């Protein structure tokens, strides 16, 4: 099994941290994992990617990830056609958005979560990444939500663990139009 994931957000939103927490949570749940950012200079506001590989054997592969099983896109605005094309058939995508996202592919599952609203509610404006993580765990069933929550609690406190939980409960699947 080799599972590949993309996270896409913007500089300052904690995209890299999100990838790393997910990989750690996977490790804690007995899976091998690897997480790496898109390499390059980081600027606040610029689109930023982060990748995760999860496998039941040691991950040796170090090639760029060109296709992925899952995409987590922090803001609907960052979604583009090319990115959607890169998701493997049968995969899924979680988008940070107030409203259901339109889409062009029906061979993948679409989810959305109003991450911004959640972090506003909980007054954690910098925790968009944690919200996206929560949503991801709840729909992916690869890494237990508990593990992520646990890491977040240890590192960022209970308030942020709540962000994770709330997002997990709020993520919504978009019904296929087709």
């Amino acid at each position, binding site marked *: 099994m080799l599972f590949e994931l993309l996270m896409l957000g913007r500089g300052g939103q904690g995209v890299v941290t999100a990838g790393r927490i997910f990989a750690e949570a996977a490790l804690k749940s007995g899976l091998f994992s690897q997480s790496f950012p898109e390499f390059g200079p*980081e*600027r606040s*506001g610029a689109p930023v990617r982060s990748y995760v590989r999860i496998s039941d054997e040691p991950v040796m592969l170090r090639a760029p990830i060109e296709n992925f099983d899952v995409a987590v896109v922090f803001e609907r605005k960052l979604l583009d056609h090319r990115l959607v094309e890169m998701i493997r058939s049968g995969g899924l995508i979680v988008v940070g958005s107030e409203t259901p996202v339109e889409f062009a592919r029906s061979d993948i599952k679409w989810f959305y979560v109003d991450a911004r609203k959640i972090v506003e509610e909980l007054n954690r404006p910098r925790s968009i990444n944690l919200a996206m993580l929560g949503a991801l765990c709840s729909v992916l069933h690869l890494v237990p939500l508990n593990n992520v929550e646990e890491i977040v609690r240890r590192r960022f406190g209970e308030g942020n663990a709540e962000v994770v939980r709330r997002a997990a409960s709020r993520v919504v699947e978009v019904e296929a139009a087709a």
Partner: protein
Amino acid sequence: MMQVSKLTDLYGREGLSPGHTACQGCGATIAVRQVLLAAEPPYIVVSPTGCLEVVSSQYPYTSWRVPWVHVAFENAAAVASGVEAALRALEKKGLGKRQKVIVIAGDGGTFDIGFQALSGAFERGHNLLYICYDNEAYMNTGIQRSAATPLGATTTTTPTGKLEMKKDITSILVAHGSPYVATASPHLWKDLANKVRKAQSKEGPTFLHIVAPCPRGWYFDSHLTIKVAKLAVETRIFPIYEVEHGRYRINYPVPRPRPIEEYLKLQNRFAHLLKPENAHILEAFKQWVESRWNHLLKMAEAFPL
């Protein structure tokens, strides 16, 4: 030299194009834009490695509408010396025309790794204007201490706050015998623009030190850049003055300085300074500000312009 007095004197002279990849609210970019709006053609810009270079020259794009060259991190002043002297030689031979050389460099490339090249160029007396946009750390590599980082500021290499004072680059360059050394802030755009022109008009090596708040590295919200610059000046932390041939003038007197805390509290890099257990650092910081200001006053008195 044409004095700049209103914004329409500058409008339409853009030297930097949008589409660069600086962070939202980048102070360095504002400063550089203002410099280029003011500078009188013809000129050539030299930059060392750093935020400015990386955000403005990602092949196959460039944000530079003026000739620009980057060679390495530590040698902008040496490259500029070469360009300047070469154009002089070519002009004499009828193979080219002299053009003013302007270096625009970060504090790391100026105070630290590029300092020797800078000092050498000043000693040799090249006809160039060296401008340092000072964001008080190595921002391009992710916020590490430089000699320009102020006492107490946290960076990724001074996780508990820097222990040393900010290097007094302007005094050091005055001691180099430069005909014109000045400081400026982008919130005082007119002062800045006129200093660029004045510096450019002198023969010999001149220096302009511009405060360039960095939302990413100083940890403040991107809309506050100009506010922060203004506070740096109005707390006397960043005095605005000029020195011509060793004679001083304070351009922005600040008779009633704003409390230093106002400046510090906007920026997360100083957050710990406001904690009671760090009162002694805050005190040292204040003393530093005061003693520099007093020194400046005394110099302006002993060597008035």
